């Protein structure tokens, strides 16, 4: 119970941390990113979106990044991208492997390709 409250508090603080400089920069001006996303997204409460950012930053931290790095990475994402990642980082593809495997696959694929393309 206590830890879940602590986590919530952490998220809120992170959200505020990420939020405050933006608020200062954008005072009074309606941002372009709000325009180009779907109209329904513009209605969504800002606090929820920034909680989403804090959430993703938290997840990135749990995957081996320090807090500063995680925040900088999240800052480069759009709201839509943050929504895409929130809660789903572990199930998403992460490009990593080298090409050793391709050789055998190439043999199979080449045979198939031969049928369609070289005929």
């Amino acid at each position, binding site marked *: 119970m206590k830890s879940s409250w602590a986590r919530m508090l952490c998220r809120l603080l992170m959200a505020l941390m990420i939020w405050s400089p933006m608020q200062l*920069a954008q*005072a*009074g*001006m*309606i*941002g*372009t*990113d*709000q*325009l*180009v*996303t779907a*109209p329904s997204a*513009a*209605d969504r409460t800002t606090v929820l979106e920034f909680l989403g950012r804090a959430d993703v930053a938290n997840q*990135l931290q*749990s*995957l*081996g*990044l320090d807090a500063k*790095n995680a925040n*900088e*990475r999240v*800052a*480069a*994402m*759009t709201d839509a*991208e943050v929504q*895409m*990642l929130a809660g789903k*980082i*572990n199930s*998403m*593809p*992460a*490009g*990593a*492997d*080298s*090409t050793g*495997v*391709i050789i*055998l*696959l*190439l043999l*199979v*694929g*080449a*045979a*198939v*390709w031969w*049928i*369609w*393309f*070289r005929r």
Partner: protein
Amino acid sequence: MVDLVPPLAIRSALKNARFTAGVFIFATLAALSGCASFMPQTKELGKALPAGLPEEIELTATPFFPQLEYQCGPAALATVLAAGGVKVTADELVPQVYLPERKGSLQVEMLAAARRHGMVSYQLAPRFEDLLREIADGTPVVVLQNLGMFSSGWHYAVAIGYNYERGTLVLRSGTQERDVLPFGVHEIVWMRGGYWAMVAVPPDKIPATADENRWLAAVAALERAGDARSARTAYTTFLGRWPANVNASIGLANAHHTLGDLGEAEAVLRKAATSAPDSVVVLNNLAQTLSDLGRDQEALPFAERAVAAGGPFTAAAQKTRDSIAERLRSKTGGVERLK
């Protein structure tokens, strides 16, 4: 050291056994399904070369960053960024895209990290033809492949050329500077990642296959990431191609505003206000810009019009109007006190 050898040998034997099984299953499936569903786009491409594409091209000047273990993400991204003129190495990109616990890089982060270097990143439509068009236009393309037999095996490579007659694609991939793959093989491994492909171009360029709205969103994403200077260039380039796009004008004005060029912002917004006189955002941002220039008297009517126009941004418009009205009141109050 010696007792390390057997486990490794067993592991690689197991891996090979699993792999052979995978190849077998794959080949059987391919035979059963008659192959067509395995490479629908290759089949389509095989009919004829799409109009306007050269028979053969290779962007040989594209730099090559051989990847270290698991780090194809940074290597692939460095390749396209450097090709676009950014001075960066794969090592420098590791802290920006690599996730240690996942031993890889996420697609979203590949797109996001490019913005941190002032480039506009754009996810291509999932079409083989578009991939070829970008290469033909001189832009190397990052593709996500799945080289594993089962679920893992995600890999980023950079497509830099093709030969239509031979039906082959040339890629910078992993430790291979020039990996040549038949279209069909590439499609099979590419399809598994939903035909995911991205380009990252300098802000004064528009990709060959860019769609107006999605390209604008890509530029807005760069602006949001905090690079107003590059965003300004990108909006200007955008308006050169699509001059009637009001949202791009708003974006350009916002970039000017962020950079402190309030006069430029005003000029762009005034022009936009004549072509879109009911746009809440144009009116609101023009009012705010005039107010920031110290011209609250002039700003107030625009703020009033923004509120009257209604729509999803009404709350923001009301806030702008109230703060302008408040500034006017305190100014006149001050003047009266001086009398």
